[in-house]
């Protein structure tokens, strides 16, 4: 039996020497070029960081590869960022270019800093999760192949954070991203009447539905439930408590896109992302519809936003009506909130643009 509750290794064993020495005493930093940071300590010491993209879903051999780089140039230390990127750290300016070379040799792009697109926060999808309405890694791959240039450069008005969640559980900070890609169901649960009575607790199942769409089966002989189609908004809450009610459907499952969220408190307070495309089909392996609309939005944003203006700040300034006009995304009834706080989203002023 393993030891219990030892907790994670102490980070003090994990940080490189220069960090140990200047811990808490950094003075300023600059971005030397995309993916390369230079931090200067009060002591005058320097710390160079080379940031490299990662597919996140990696093999142990991949980790060994990057360990090799770290052993060679970084005294055997490296770190990961909160968006899955790999960071190689060194006090030695001379090592920066060799690290970049080594990363390139491994096929890893160097970038993800400053006013560009960093790695896409994402989740499990069809690789591991039972709940997924879409996949994750392939969409990220397809997107980053197309957005690659924004990762290795810093030419957007501001940071642009893209995130993906394969279902509306929204693992990750997807609900507060500049662009969020979310897997959605659009068909009501397919009920397995044979199994339901046996494996699910019927009252719990009924209670699980936030809209009250689930009722007992009208035929008392059948120990199961039925779903009122007009009340179901495909949240999957019933499926969480009752496996006999899967929502997954080849045609009904797909992707919704949300925009304009942010997390930082810089300038504007944190904001939620908001629905901009209610549904796009799942189209493996490269989800071309999703890739195309994301690219379009990024381009419209790049062209219209002011410097240091995040997506949501830009939209707030020009108005959502302008956003829909510029992106040519059709406005539908789905965009209008009808959930609990709906009234807070209605336009209670004559102030609007045409």
């Amino acid at each position: 039996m393993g030891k219990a509750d030892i907790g994670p290794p102490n980070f003090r064993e994990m940080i490189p020497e220069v960090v140990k020495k200047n811990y808490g005493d950094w003075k300023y930093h600059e971005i030397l070029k995309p993916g390369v940071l230079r931090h200067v300590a009060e002591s005058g010491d320097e710390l160079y960081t080379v940031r490299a993209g990662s597919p996140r879903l990696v093999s142990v051999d991949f980790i060994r590869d990057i360990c090799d780089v770290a052993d060679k140039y970084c005294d055997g230390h490296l770190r990961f960022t909160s968006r899955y990127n790999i960071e190689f750290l060194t006090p030695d300016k001379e090592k920066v270019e060799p690290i970049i070379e080594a990363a390139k040799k491994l096929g890893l792009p160097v970038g993800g800093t400053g006013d560009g697109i960093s790695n896409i926060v994402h989740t499990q999808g069809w690789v591991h999760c039972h709940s997924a309405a879409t996949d994750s890694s392939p969409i990220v791959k397809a997107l980053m192949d197309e957005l690659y240039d924004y990762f290795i450069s810093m030419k957007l008005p501001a940071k642009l954070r893209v995130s993906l969640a394969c279902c509306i559980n929204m693992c990750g900070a997807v609900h507060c991203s500049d662009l969020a890609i979310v897997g959605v169901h659009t068909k009501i649960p397919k009920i397995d009447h044979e199994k339901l009575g046996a494996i699910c607790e019927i009252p719990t199942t009924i209670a699980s539905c936030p809209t009250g769409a689930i009722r007992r089966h009208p035929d008392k002989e059948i120990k199961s439930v039925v779903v009122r189609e007009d009340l179901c908004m495909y949240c999957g809450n019933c499926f969480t408590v009752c496996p006999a009610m899967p929502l997954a459907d080849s045609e009904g499952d797909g992707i919704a896109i949300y925009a304009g969220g942010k997390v930082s408190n810089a300038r504007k307070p944190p904001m939620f992302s908001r629905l901009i495309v209610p549904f796009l089909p799942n189209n493996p392996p490269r989800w071309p519809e999703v890739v195309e609309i994301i690219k379009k939005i990024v381009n419209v944003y790049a062209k219209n936003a002011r410097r240091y203006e995040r997506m949501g700040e830009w939209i707030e300034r020009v108005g959502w009506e302008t956003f829909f006009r510029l992106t040519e995304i059709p406005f539908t009834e789905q965009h209008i909130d009808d959930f609990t706080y709906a009234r807070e989203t209605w336009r209670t002023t004559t102030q609007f643009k045409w």
Partner: protein
Amino acid sequence: MKEETPLVDELEKGPWPSYVKEIKRAAKKSKAAEDLLGVQELSFNDKVTHWKHGGIVGVTGYGGGVIGRYSDVPDKFPNVESFHTLRVNHPAGWFYNTKALRKICDVWEKHGSGLTNMHGSTGDIILLGTTTAHLQPCFNDLTEAGFDLGGSGSALRTPTACVGPARCEWTNINTLDMVQDLTMEFQDEIHRPRWPYKSKIKISGCPNDCVAAIARADLTIIGTWRDSLKIDQNGVKEYAKNGFDIKTLVVDKCPTNALEWDEKSKNLKLKPEDCVRCMHCINKMTKAIRPGDDKGATIMIGGKAPIVKGAMLSFVLVPFMKAEPPYTEIKELIRKIWDWWDENGRVRERVGELIERVGMRNFLKAVDLKPVPQMIKAPRTNPYVFF
């Protein structure tokens, strides 16, 4: 049997590093990884997931840290019939020495698919896919290597912190020490689920919030300062000299118009009482502007994803608290919050939702805090007031 995977193979192309290549690398050594490729191809064709509702699996003495997972096509892909995930608690700030990392690689090559997520979106090392039989031995070897499991289920999830003092000039608190300390303090809460639902702690050193705590953590700790930020006028002049448009890019973007710019004297003046510490001017002029000296933390509460009542952002609970080791005040507050939530929360109700349901009034009384205007954006509009 090695399947044809034409759709999946397509994803080996293109400039971004390919996860398919990684699965294929793992597949060379792991039958499970090989089957996983086939599962992907099948899902690409069917456009649905092929994983079933997870079962309850784990390691001795722990109630969490493992996500059980079973295939719904075990006949076709017997090597992933069970394909459980271990969540391994990362070292604070996701710093590693290669020795430690290589140890994990060895353990996982021995016990699992050889596939990982570095990292999961909560921040764990995700060891992706193994059988029930391997769970305990894998865990034993992990602890031998100095690692422990993170949280899952109705437990405290692996707390995370931004890189903070290790590299960032803006941090106002010792994020890494704090997350390490809290993680050790709350080992029991991480490993032995017993609450109404999950609870998350995230720590950012400043309001830039580089771990997205406000959006994702039930308990959000953000470094801040209580006095005035510091402007070095020589530094300011340097920026101006280099052609940086201070008026347009900084002064005009200050959310509260707390800055005044004198184009002639190149002087940047702050009205300290108007600054809300948004970080923008500091972010853009790091060589000239710095946070204040009276540092501490803002404690916020209630962030979470949408299920079932809509997403919530963390909101201010304690505008300012000093945050020095051993962080007694913070720990006591956290325990009070959890105790109250544990006692009053419904199943699958996060602490923010509970506060919403019963009202701030009752919550504040329970955790012994006085109402202050900083907790709210604005007072109530409705007249439905309890006395």
